[in-house]
């Protein structure tokens, strides 16, 4: 449909080769920035990466930060009251917590329930949980940790580096599943590369 109206054929402005040059430069910049500058942000959060700092309220409304627990081995678990495997996993988590009481170990169970704290309170009472429960009601932190479901657990070492990421529920009473936690408690933190290697070995073995 011909635009018969008032489009003036103004060729005022920069000459074509310069325009093309500018356009190509802009495009290249975007591509390079994305590929080399921002590629980290596309990678899933995994073993070997620094655990992102966060602050969330507990069930009493008190704010708790991840950095408060630096120096301890942190078991960061994302869960929800409506998630059946999470409910099955909780008793074993409580057992581990009781067993390791006194050692430099902490469990932070972050609930992504959209309901209020009362629902979670009820659940916590029913299961007799004594470890800290945090509430990520808006789901912001779960996005930061790029979780794709519940339950998901991150074992974070004394330096704040993620030692292992576990998707799905585990029977935490099983010694095999506790291996990394016990190692960290005994021998202290390892290097990020060792965590990455451990993940690859697990994937291949």
């Amino acid at each position, binding site marked *: *449909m011909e*635009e018969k109206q*008032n489009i003036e054929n103004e*060729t005022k402005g920069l000459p074509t080769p310069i*325009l093309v040059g500018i356009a190509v430069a802009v495009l290249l910049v975007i591509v390079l920035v994305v590929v080399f500058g*921002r*590629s980290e942000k*596309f990678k899933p959060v995994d073993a070997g990466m620094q655990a992102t700092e966060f602050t969330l309220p507990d069930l009493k409304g008190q704010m708790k930060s991840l950095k408060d627990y630096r120096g301890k081995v942190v078991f960061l678990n994302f869960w929800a009251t409506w998630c059946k495997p999470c409910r099955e996993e909780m008793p074993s988590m409580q057992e581990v917590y009781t067993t390791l009481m006194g050692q430099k170990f902490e469990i932070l169970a972050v609930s992504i329930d959209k309901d209020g704290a009362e629902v979670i309170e009820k659940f916590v009472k029913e299961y007799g949980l004594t470890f800290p429960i945090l509430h990520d009601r808006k789901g912001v932190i779960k996005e930061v940790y790029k979780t794709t479901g519940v339950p998901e657990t991150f074992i974070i070492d004394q330096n704040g580096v993620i030692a292992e990421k576990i998707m799905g529920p585990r029977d935490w009473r099983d010694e095999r599943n506790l291996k990394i936690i016990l190692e960290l408690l005994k021998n202290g933190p390892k290097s990020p590369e060792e965590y990455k290697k451990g993940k690859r070995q697990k994937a291949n073995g």
Partner: protein
Amino acid sequence: MILSLMFFDMAYWFYLITAILYIGNWIFRRDWIGSTATVMTFIALFANTMILVARTFESGHAPFSNLYESMVLFVWAMAIGYLVMEFKYKVKVVGAVVMTLAFIAMIAASKLPYRFQSIERLNPALQSIWLEIHVFTTFIGYAGFAIAFGLSIMYLVKNRMEERGAKVSLIDSFPQSSVLDELSYKCIMWGFPFLTTGIITGAYWANNAWGTYWSWDPKETWSLITWFIYAAYLHARVTRGWRGKRAAWLSIIGFLAVIFLYWGVSFVLPGLHAYA
């Protein structure tokens, strides 16, 4: 998975530049801005295509299995539809509206929770070629309706100006309202059969998977609601008193129904169709 997410990031910026260029072309009316805009659309479309290609290799199935992937397909179809329209009718002013809509769609996709962006294995019910045909045809339909939506808004604005005899230079550069009317009709002439095919192939898939081709679940019902509205549009164009403005309103309401059908049903209403 990283490759497709990187292409998405690139396409996101490319579509932003494209929208800015078309708006610039509309306001400043320089040929070179318009030409650059068209070239930029091609580049954005290429990056968009690469998202889909990369996604296919990363996931092992057609790249329309969830809300994130289908949004990418939606923008892709919109860009192609617009380029065809621009090629045949030379209406770059329309690009200002359509490519802005495309960029808004990219924004919406980028705000989706991470679990939509990550690759997930198809569960047993989703493993069917009819599903893939269903999603594909439906989204081509949505893209047609989206472009028609933009055109209908432009029609109402231009029509108002023409009726009042006013002279607003920015709206002067819009094509005549009769042209806008016919172009939106053409878009719906593409959108409607594709939506219908989408509904029918969806029913065929449901029949193969669960034994019922229609169960009045919210998603199915809303697709029928959308279908009723666009069917009304097609008939309005040949009914006295319903041509022009009222038809344009139906096209606009129809697309609002599409938005609810696409996003609202999954997040607001309960039901079987929670994924796509």
